[in-house]
């Protein structure tokens, strides 16, 4: 087989979990100050604690999704860290969320303030330090389990809530719809292992590990996102309110 044949084979099978990389980077909202944040995120890679019911699902879905395209190993070769240590995905995700301003890096806050001073322009970095799929997987691994959990609070994740979660990830973040669909399916079937207590514990551990994380801002962002989820079907059920309160309790504890 010539190198050109091998190249054809390689590129025919490469899939990305981010279909719209511009949309994804834009949504990250990290402007031109991303280098520092992402380096901080990478410094966290030795952190060994994983998100209960979250990261493992994300990673397994990622592997099986790529396996369905017969290229798992080939593509994972581009993300050497991920192929060695799945829990890293969540940690990097936290860093990235921190970088977006969600999670309260001091500099992220400054960046947001700077942004509000100029509403006419949004800076979108052309390239990021961290592999884009690793960022995407990390973010999805962090957001999906708690979203599903909240959506299931009234008994089941209804069609509207499901569709809205998919829409959120694909339209707002630029994810590949097939990947998100698989991740959502995998997550739905594994929610018995999800625990708000463990979720909050992991987040707190991450915040403690890096002085730049502010737990109060982390908590606020997660709670705001979950409120959006439970409002997707047009009403807030008492069970959903209870779940939200439980999450808030653990995050505030």
């Amino acid at each position, binding site marked *: 087989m010539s*190198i050109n044949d091998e*190249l054809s084979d390689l*590129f025919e099978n490469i899939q990305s979990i981010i279909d719209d990389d511009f949309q994804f980077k834009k949504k990250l909202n990290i402007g031109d100050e*991303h280098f520092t944040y992402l380096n901080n995120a990478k410094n966290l890679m030795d952190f060994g604690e994983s998100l209960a019911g979250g990261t493992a699902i994300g990673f397994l879905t990622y592997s099986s999704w790529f396996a369905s395209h017969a290229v798992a190993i080939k593509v994972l070769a581009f993300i050497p860290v991920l192929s060695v240590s799945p829990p890293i995905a969540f940690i990097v995700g936290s860093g990235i969320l921190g970088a977006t301003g969600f999670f309260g890096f001091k500099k992220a806050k400054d960046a947001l303030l700077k942004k509000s001073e100029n509403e006419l322009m949004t800076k979108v970095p*052309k*390239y990021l330090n961290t*592999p*884009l799929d690793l960022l995407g997987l990390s973010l999805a691994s962090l957001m999906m389990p708690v979203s599903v959990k909240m959506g299931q609070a009234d008994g089941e994740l209804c069609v509207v809530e499901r569709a809205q979660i998919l829409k959120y990830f694909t339209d707002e973040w630029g994810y590949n719809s097939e990947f998100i669909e698989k991740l959502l399916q995998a997550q739905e079937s594994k929610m018995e292992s999800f625990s708000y207590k463990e979720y909050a514990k992991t987040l707190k551990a991450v915040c403690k590990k890096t002085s730049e994380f502010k737990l109060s801002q982390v908590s606020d962002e997660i709670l705001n996102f979950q409120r959006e989820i439970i409002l997707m079907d047009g009403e807030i059920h008492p069970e959903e309110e209870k779940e939200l309160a439980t999450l808030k309790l653990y995050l505030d504890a």
Partner: protein
Amino acid sequence: MIIQVTHPETKQVIDIEVDSMNIEELQELYKTTAPEKTLLSAIENLDIPAEAKALLLKIKDFTIQVGGVALKIGKKILELIIYFIKKYPSTTIGLIVGSVLGMLFSNIPVIGWALGWLLMPLCTALGLALGFWKDFSEKEIKVAIDGAINEFFSSFKNIPTPENA
């Protein structure tokens, strides 16, 4: 036959007269195997600094005109970089990127003339010393890269750049 090369940075154009070349063969050799979106995605997914990604993508649109036909040399170089990264996943990505480009630019003068200016900033971004590939200890990779350079770029190996270039 005339080979025309445009320097991507300075836009200087050089014409070099060479013996006849088989254009159809060259077109077949340089046919792109990766859709542009896929190639960009593969570069985006490399675990290297953003500055290095930006510099690498400056190579993408580099072409050499042979007898009026544009050969997509830049895309082929990027495809080869991705190929070697995939083939040697346990080797640091920066070392592979630097080795492919360093060995290519020093072996093929006309490509070195057009793209060599990228090497210094790229090595800096990747944390490598310029010229490291000469002492690169991974013999198997070195041989493989050398083989690929011969397979794809030997037609241009003996083409010197004009003195005024």
